[in-house]
């Protein structure tokens, strides 16, 4: 099995490739040296899309059909004149269906019907009636999660930090907050159905109503498409953390707990991955090979992915630029022999 990872960092993108074993890796890069690579994905036809940014020169979308020749999208995401918002960063790109979506800071959703060549704002969400109550969290006001029902692309879920989850059932024409059962952390005076701080989402590809939600205040699950959420964090070492990933074959879930929203570090310096093999009912540490002490770097929300092999490979990076891989569904871990800049995103862009 050949696997390619695209690793987005504070100073560029890196490609890690493994032929066969998923234990020996070659590293290429950096792509866009000096630029932040904040979001990455590959569409079904093989086009790779990157979100790049610079604190000086701003964000943009880059596309490539061969990972060598890159083109910056000229009609990229842009706020309409007069709305008074800034485009600070591209947080996530979903290119799995005919219509592509991307999420940005300041929080907004954009769509493309031409494989990412041009992008238009999704006004029904961006100008939502609750917008006046959207407040930034510690990571900014960012739309960082987009999940689409594989069987019905008109059903879309998005997550905005410190605001919550919204769902559309009509191809992004209308949106409704879906946060019932999740504690509110930033209460708005007027809009009582927002103010939840979603950190990450994982969807069961065979049942889009079954969604797992890494929340600022715990781990949650819905089995009715977000109408109701319940806690499911038995066994986790901490209620706090960012990434959550699912293997589509076994439905195993993976997450990396961190010690509280105040510290945001591995608890007691022990870096642990937790896995659930029962739809999130219980979680177990699968951390053989990870540092058992003196590990003090966080893992960001986009910095974990799985390859859906058998067994699945699991990959994550941390804010100290360490990259960890497992070829056996988390049973054993190996650190790649490279120190990267702060890792912001990890995506499996190829697994054949």
């Amino acid at each position, binding site marked *: 099995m050949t696997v390619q990872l695209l690793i987005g960092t504070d100073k560029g993108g890196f490609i890690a490739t493994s032929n066969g074993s998923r234990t020996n890796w070659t590293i290429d890069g950096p792509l*866009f040296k000096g*630029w932040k690579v904040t979001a990455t994905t590959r569409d079904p036809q093989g086009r790779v899309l990157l979100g790049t940014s*610079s604190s*000086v020169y701003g964000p943009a979308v880059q596309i490539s059909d061969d990972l060598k020749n890159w083109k*910056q999208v000229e009609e990229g995401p842009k*706020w309409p004149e007069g709305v008074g918002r*800034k485009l600070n960063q591209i947080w996530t790109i979903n290119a799995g269906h005919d219509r592509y979506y991307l999420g940005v800071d300041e929080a907004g959703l954009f769509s493309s019907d031409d494989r990412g060549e041009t992008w238009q704002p999704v006004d029904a969400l961006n100008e939502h009636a609750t917008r006046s109550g959207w407040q930034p969290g510690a990571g900014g006001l960012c739309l960082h999660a987009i999940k689409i029902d594989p069987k019905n692309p008109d059903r879309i879920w998005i997550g905005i930090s410190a605001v919550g989850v919204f769902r559309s059932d009509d191809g992004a024409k209308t949106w409704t907050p879906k946060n019932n059962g999740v504690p509110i952390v930033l209460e708005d005076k007027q809009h009582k159905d927002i103010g939840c701080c979603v950190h990450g989402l994982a969807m069961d590809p065979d049942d889009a109503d079954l969604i797992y939600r890494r929340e600022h205040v715990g781990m949650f699950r819905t089995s009715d498409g977000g109408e109701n959420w319940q806690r499911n964090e038995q066994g986790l070492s901490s209620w706090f953390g960012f990434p959550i990933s699912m293997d589509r074959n076994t439905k195993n879930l993976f997450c990396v707990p961190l010690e509280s929203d105040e510290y945001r570090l591995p608890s007691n310096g022990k870096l642990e991955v937790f896995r659930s093999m029962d739809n999130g009912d219980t979680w177990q540490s699968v951390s053989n090979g990870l540092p058992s002490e003196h590990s003090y770097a966080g893992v960001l929300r986009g910095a974990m992915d799985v390859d859906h092999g058998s067994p699945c490979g699991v990959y994550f990076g941390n804010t100290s630029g360490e990259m960890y891989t497992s070829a056996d569904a988390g049973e054993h871990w190996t650190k790649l022999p490279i120190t990267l800049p702060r890792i912001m995103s990890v995506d499996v862009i190829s697994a054949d």
Partner: protein
Amino acid sequence: MAHVTIELPTLLHRFADDQSTVAVEADSLRGALGQLTAKHPAMQVHLFDESGSLREHVLCFHNDTNTRWMDTPDVPVGDGDRLTIMQAVSGG
């Protein structure tokens, strides 16, 4: 029209065919920058913000004068003038 050379910071070379300078013909500072983004449209979003102003941490010098202190970009440019774009040193 005056012949003006625009010098680019390293991070932006890739958006100008990997060149460090771009030669344009213009009669004003505004016109020179307009020529730059017309030749290399990807540059637009990196130099200018949503309001059309130079990004907060982008500096542009007309010869030795910081254009941020000019009242207007409609400043005449002459043959052999140089525009230097660089990032502001805003922290360390």
